């Protein structure tokens, strides 16, 4: 269960401002507003029943049978019921009963559920175990039959019904509150409060409760609707309070006293309509609340992608230069010209995540794509295979893979290029491999997709061969990803990436989640595979040490643009962009152990608050006035060195 957006905010702003913020967002949520209005209407009706109703409650108009089940007329807008009373009047007064029972019963349930949930979640251990086991039992036992039994054995009074519904309705609340309490309990400020010796009750009251409240409120709304439904069912089954004419009770009388056979549809429709109105209003309101308090990013990987904007590539394409560690006749396998990618959304201007980035990759080359979190390197990497999230859009530029221009391909053509031409190794999160399928199966799937003739023995042999290549013994191919260690999983991903003999592998921080020793192993593996198989690799990372060791070229990104792009030796010995220079200063150098590490103060720009000039200017130690107003162009400093800095302008080549 994901944490509420409100959980991550500290509880310091005043109640008034919090409510104002909430209202602003809630106002735009159509479902929530509709529900809220529906509730207001029915509460208004209930409160002003004595004003709205044309007759007094339980007024007997005419004692004769001729008044029973009269159809709607001017005197009785919704006709009369089985006792000759006005249906509309009873409906309006019945609202009071149903709402009162619903709210009070729900109050009891939420109180009990909240208490149990917080106590179980906070105190943990035996207490939690016992409470949750009890909760499970009560969850399994069917609610309504139990309620029916208890009310049947005791008095069917309103008070009793409220009590019974309340006492049995807490099971879902306690589960939810417990989960949330567990999530909040391990947050830093709670740990801090405990460390300074704050009492348990104080912590619960001041820290835990405010963060559990949003979820509790959403749940409470749904519990109210459940309570109202429960009361109406109990009344309908004949267990309602005979002195309180709730909607359910009205339906009980109508159904049991011949409304159907006399065709008195008004006696059946009207009370039921009331129940539906209230429950629907509560449900819509509850869902609206949930969307506001607990927003889920309702986007997924299979959504329709944004159309690519086709432009002529503006600006000069890069002139490919030599690389110190590679033969310069090696052909170029992948080239990006002036690539710009934005994230679009309905209510804001597009966020320019990548702007005018160009690079080229020769056969056998290992390029390091370096930058801080949020600089656009992952966006760039994903765009190569058209794997951007639904909001991502390529707004400029071209991607050339050999002779094919990738942004112009159809989806089906792109599917052919994926994995077979270019494959990816994702960050080693647990979930990069499907947890319910075996590893061997998933590797085989990749092979078969691009070569349907492979099957059975040949397929299995190939899978074993791939696993062997990365140092995993073949019996593991029948295992599930959770049975692999972190390093093994990453190596399996690499094996999978090699399955169709691609020309290029894009590795997105493949070692970030691993510990140092395993990191070294995996890196060595990648490098040796590259040499053995003649692969080209784009290695996305923020670790300059790794880059120095393995890469042939480096593309340093900052704030979505190219900061510097050069041969690896040039970057390390002759960096021209201040960002690169600062980055290098922040990394320890074994040859100068006494040198102090300097970190770069500040943080990278937010994509919706990009500065007008150079994006690094706010943090740059060498910035001057021009930097703040004019974004520097990418200057070519030599055959193989590009930097986007005004300071680099003087020494650039024409």
């Amino acid at each position, binding site marked *: 269960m994901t944490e509420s957006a409100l959980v991550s905010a500290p509880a310091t702003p005043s109640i008034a401002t919090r409510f104002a913020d909430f209202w602003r967002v809630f106002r735009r949520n159509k479902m929530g507003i509709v529900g809220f209005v529906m509730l207001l209407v029915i509460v208004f009706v209930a409160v002003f029943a004595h004003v709205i109703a044309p007759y007094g409650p339980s007024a007997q108009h005419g004692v004769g049978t001729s008044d029973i089940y009269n159809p709607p007329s001017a005197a009785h807008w919704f006709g009369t019921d089985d006792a000759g009373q006005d249906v509309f009047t009873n409906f309006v007064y019945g609202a009071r009963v149903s709402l009162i029972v619903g709210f009070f019963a729900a109050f009891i349930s939420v109180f009990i559920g909240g208490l149990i949930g917080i106590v179980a979640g906070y105190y943990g251990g035996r207490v939690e175990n016992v409470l949750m086991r009890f909760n499970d039992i009560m969850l399994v036992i069917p609610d*309504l039959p139990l309620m029916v039994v208890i009310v049947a054995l005791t008095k069917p009074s309103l008070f009793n019904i409220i009590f019974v519904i309340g006492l049995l309705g807490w099971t879902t609340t306690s589960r939810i509150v417990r989960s949330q309490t567990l999530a909040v309990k391990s947050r830093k400020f709670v740990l801090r409060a405990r460390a300074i010796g704050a009492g348990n009750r104080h912590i619960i009251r001041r820290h835990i409760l405010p963060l559990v409240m949003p979820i509790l409120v959403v749940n409470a709304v749904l519990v109210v609707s459940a309570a109202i439904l429960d009361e109406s069912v109990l009344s309908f089954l004949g267990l309602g309070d005979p002195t309180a004419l709730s909607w359910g009770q009205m339906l009980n009388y109508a159904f049991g006293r011949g409304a159907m056979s006399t065709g008195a549809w008004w006696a059946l429709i009207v009370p*039921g309509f009331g129940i539906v109105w209230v429950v629907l209003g509560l449900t*819509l309101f509850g869902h609206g609340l949930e969307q506001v308090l607990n927003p889920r990013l309702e986007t997924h990987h299979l959504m329709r992608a944004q159309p690519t904007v086709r432009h002529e590539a503006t600006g000069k394409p890069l002139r490919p230069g030599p690389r110190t560690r590679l033969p310069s006749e090696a052909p170029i396998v992948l080239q990006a010209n002036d690539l710009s990618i934005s994230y679009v959304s309905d209510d804001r201007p597009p966020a320019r995540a990548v702007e005018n980035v160009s690079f080229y990759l020769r056969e056998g080359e290992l390029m390091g794509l370096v930058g801080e979190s949020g600089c656009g390197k992952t966006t760039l990497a994903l765009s190569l295979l058209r794997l951007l999230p639904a909001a991502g859009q390529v707004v400029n530029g071209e991607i050339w893979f050999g002779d094919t221009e990738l942004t112009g391909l159809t989806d089906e053509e792109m599917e052919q290029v994926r994995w077979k031409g270019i494959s990816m190794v994702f960050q080693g999160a647990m979930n990069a491999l499907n947890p319910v399928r075996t590893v061997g199966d998933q590797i085989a799937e*990749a092979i078969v*997709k691009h070569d349907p003739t492979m099957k059975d023995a040949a397929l299995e042999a190939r899978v074993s061969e791939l696993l062997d290549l990365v140092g995993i013994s073949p019996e593991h191919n029948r295992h599930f990803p959770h049975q692999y260690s972190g390093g093994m999983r990453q190596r399996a991903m690499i094996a999978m990436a090699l399955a169709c003999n691609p020309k290029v592998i894009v590795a997105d921080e493949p070692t970030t989640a691993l510990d140092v020793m395993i990191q070294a192993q995996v890196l060595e593996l990648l490098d040796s595979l590259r040499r053995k198989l003649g692969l080209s690799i784009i290695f996305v990372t923020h670790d300059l040490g790794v880059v120095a060791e393995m890469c042939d070229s480096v593309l340093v990104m900052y704030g979505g643009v190219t900061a510097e792009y050069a041969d690896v030796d040039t970057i390390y010995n002759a960096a021209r962009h201040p960002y690169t220079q600062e980055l290098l200063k922040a990394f320890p150098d074994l040859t100068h152990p006494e040198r102090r590490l300097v970190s770069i103060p500040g943080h990278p720009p937010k994509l919706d608050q990009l500065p007008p000039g150079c994006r690094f200017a706010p943090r740059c130690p060498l910035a001057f006035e021009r930097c703040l107003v004019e974004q520097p162009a990418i200057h070519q400093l030599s055959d193989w060195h590009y930097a986007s800095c005004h300071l680099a302008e003087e020494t650039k080549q024409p």
Partner: protein
Amino acid sequence: MKRWRYLLGKIGWAVFTVLFVLVLNFFLFRVLPGDPARAGIHDPRLKKEAIEAIRVRFGLDKPVINCFESLNPVKFGSCAVNPLDTQFFIYVKNLLQGEMGISYHTNRPVANILAERLWNTILLIGAGQLLAIFIGVIFGVFAAWKARTSIDYGALIVSLLAWSLPTFWLGIILLFWGSNHGLPIGGMQTPGMSSQPFFARAGDVLSHMLLPTLTYTIVYMGEYMLIMRSSLLDVLSEDYVLTAKAKGLNTFQVLKDHALKNAMLPLVTVIAINLGFTMAGAVQIESVFSWPGLGGAIYEAVNRRDFPVLQGAFLLIAVAVIVANLIAELTYAYLDPRVQSE
């Protein structure tokens, strides 16, 4: 090895829950003011011999449980009562022998009455649930796949509306409409059909089943659709779906081979949790449509104050739900390879 321990643990827990329900059931009916056995004794219609027989049969002259008067059920020593000679153990012993008492209303053994009705309920609920799951899953998959489009919003509204309808009221509406269009107004069979050949009888039962099953399906499909949609949305935003897409699989292949199986797992859990609620639906639908099932038995027993039947029906329903819940949990353990231990 670990999995066996997990399975045994789950089964053991289910047994414990059944015992809890047994105890709860016993105490509800003996301790609450409307104690049936004692109330039955005061029924003026009963003859002296009958009263005596009830007294002996249910051990009403014996203590309820050991040392009940001092509210200390575990003190064996200082109570001069053999614990096995108490009402509670007589109750348990009777249950183990399949004895659930005699119905006040029909004087038939409760066990017999309920046994007939159990299968009728299973038939109705089974059909309704299967349809609800089937339709709900399909709607849910479409809604998630086309999230945030008009298909999604439409399906969402329909589901929320279906969820807000009181089950019994929907039943009433459908019954009202159905009776004006020639469908049967209640029961499971038209009187006189039992002598007909199988297919005619089956067709007759089906025509009686149509409206209640429809009610059931409409009410529950909304919930399953919402669950499936949210589950599939979660799954489709997982990393392994991106990996699958990166491998070149098309949308249909990704859905079929990676997403659906993973998204169905939480559904199994929800179906398990839901079983208690489906019984609530059964009580309502069976009472509206006079369907001769366990839910209907509860309704009739309440109306006639037929406490032995009420007690037996409640117990049977609770046990059925616990068993079904256990089956669902074991199925989940079978489907999800990550399940090792609690």
